[in-house]
């Protein structure tokens, strides 16, 4: 039996915040956008890494969900998203329980946004993830404002994952740019646990442009500094605090 409560308890451990880093960057009743970083300069096309922002959004969503709260993941049933399917054993490997997840595949972006607002407004899910590809013209300021209002009203965290798009103005509370970063090698130069390069592009009423690398620790259910407990590579940097900080039961409201 998959025991997710162990991770939940660990996720609420108080962590030291790095200087200038927001105390609880992802508020529970907010809308948060995760953009895929552009591929490196030598890339021919606009090939982007959509797995990293999605994984980060999933991990934040899992931290936001209390035990038993379902996680809704909305994506499109066509195009690029139809070729790359979510793989449940991979979710398990990240410490995400697939049993608590409902996956919804929708025919077009309009349906996705409509279903998304419905899910958020209903308030039965701990978090709702909307995955979008490309420029997504239907996701305009009005649409994002609608999601923000619904999230504030129902206390559901909304995570929007976008790839193949330049960051655009929206009503989101925070906007992040995420890329995969080199992992800490295991013995025999094997790839290690997932490391993300995270940039805070925008935060409502907060600092912007912060950048750091975080590693996901599955056993503890938290993000940590990749150099934590190991020989420092580039100066000691404290960890990105978990979504919920402070005392265990309380939702952090930023």
């Amino acid at each position, binding site marked *: 039996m998959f025991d997710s409560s162990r991770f939940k308890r660990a996720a609420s451990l108080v962590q030291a915040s790095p200087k200038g880093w927001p105390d609880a960057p992802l508020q529970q009743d907010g809308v948060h956008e995760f953009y895929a970083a552009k591929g490196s300069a030598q890339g021919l096309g606009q090939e982007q890494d959509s797995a990293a922002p999605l994984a980060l959004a999933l991990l934040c969503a899992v931290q936001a969900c209390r035990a038993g709260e379902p996680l809704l993941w909305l994506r499109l049933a066509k195009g690029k998203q139809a070729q790359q399917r979510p*793989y449940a054993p*991979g979710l398990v490997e990240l410490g995400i329980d697939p*049993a608590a997840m409902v*996956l919804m595949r929708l025919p077009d972006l309009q*349906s996705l946004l409509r279903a998304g607002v419905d899910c958020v407004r209903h308030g039965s899910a701990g978090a709702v993830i909307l995955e979008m590809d490309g420029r997504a013209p239907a996701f305009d300021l009005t649409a994002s404002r609608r999601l923000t209002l619904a999230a504030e009203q129902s206390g559901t965290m909304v995570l929007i994952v976008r790839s193949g798009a330049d960051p655009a103005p929206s009503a989101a509370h925070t906007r992040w740019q995420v890329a995969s970063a080199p992992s800490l090698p295991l013995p025999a130069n094997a790839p290690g646990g997932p490391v993300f390069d995270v940039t805070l592009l925008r935060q409502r009423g907060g600092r912007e442009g912060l950048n750091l690398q975080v590693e996901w620790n*599955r056993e503890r259910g938290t993000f940590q500094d990749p150099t934590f407990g190991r020989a420092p590579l580039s100066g000691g940097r404290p960890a990105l605090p978990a979504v919920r900080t402070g005392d265990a039961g309380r939702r952090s409201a930023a």
Partner: protein
Amino acid sequence: MREGAAPPDAAFALIAKQRGAQRIMALSPAALALGLSAGMMLADARAQEPDLAALEHRPEADHALLLRLVEACERYTPMVAPHGDDALVLDLTGCFDSLAMDETGVLDDLARRLSRLGFRPLLACAATPDAALALARFGKRSARELPVAALGLGEDAHLALKRAGLRTIGQLADRPRAPLAARFGKVMSVALAHLLEEQDRRITPHRALPPIWVEQRFAEPMATVKPLLGVIEWLAGQARDLLVARGRGGRRYEVSLFRTDGHVARLAVDSGLPLREPADVVRLFRERIESLADPLDPGFGYDLLRLSIPLHEDVSEGQERLDEDSSGRPDLAPLLDRLQVRFGAESLHRFAPRDEHLPEYVDRLVPAASWPESWPQPEAGEPPLRPLFLFDPPQTVTVLAEVPDGPPRRFGWQGRQHRVVRHEGPERLAYPWWKTVEATGPTRDYYRIEDEDGRRFWLFRHGLYGSEKADPRWYLHGIFA
């Protein structure tokens, strides 16, 4: 009985090609009056009547029309079955009270509705379906007047009876049965008992009988869609009483809207949990009506609305409302029901584990209403060994690797070269030889790799170099976070 686009008084024939000849399958009443008969060649008929119009005979369209009439006749009773190519049987047992009509009333109403649609129906009412069918077909008033052909035992038997001087069922009924059964078999006495209303026969209705149904007839046809939901809510309230009495809750609700012109529209909603509350039922039907691709057309109005519950299951008592649970969050099931009604059941899924060998079959998507299954724990202390996304199908990549079984050094995908910085592998997965008859197939060697940008991929070599394949291909099967 059948009339198409031609005016009812025109002479026309329905023809089909049989063994290279145009043969007449059916004739209009006017054509029959000219002395033509079904089964003639069209050429022979044209020799007699040069102006005879000929239309193609389409039995499947006739059958579809008959099934539409079945639906329209469900307004009287849910027990309606088509019989042969051109007849319907209605079991009206116990229906007269709710219809507020007697036998002749039902026959008159049916005749009026069918003639409005352009049919010339032959109607009869009897205690058994066989008697009613025979009375209607042969146009007699009592079973005793029927010719022996009404038995439906085949030409030989009918001829033998006629030669014995037995021409009507009445003459047959006066004879002792035992010699008849000895001469013509047991079918004869059974057919006779059916015709003489001595022995009943059940009909199998075209649609399975819903276990619970309630209906509302309107004195005046309802020509707008708006009040529908109110009526559905009222009917759902009645259905709730029936469900509560049985300790059940509905998993599937179906509304049939009978239009005055015989058209029947059906709407169905499914629910993940058994429902009883009219408000919940109406909420689902509101979604359903709003999400219809072509909206409901009331035409000249609906005059009967039936709510049936074809699927229901036990509800544990005390579970009257499901809206709240202890966590303070509302229950997910109503939301899933609504999304399912609007976007289709095929859009909502859960992951379910499967005991399979090849990685692409290890998980599968099941309907969201199914019960979540538990997943195995990952091994502590290991990095993720399986990717977050899987390519379906795996992507072809060009790989630079040492032969015969070295790890990939460099690979090209989507027009871009990735230099491999770290790797782990191979994880060798044999072909599942125990599943197929051939029992052989390429082995897969999986590598977890990381490129210079820190992106992590899952590659595999399809086939062992040399022993299985001369030049094994490489595929990208997944992407890690």
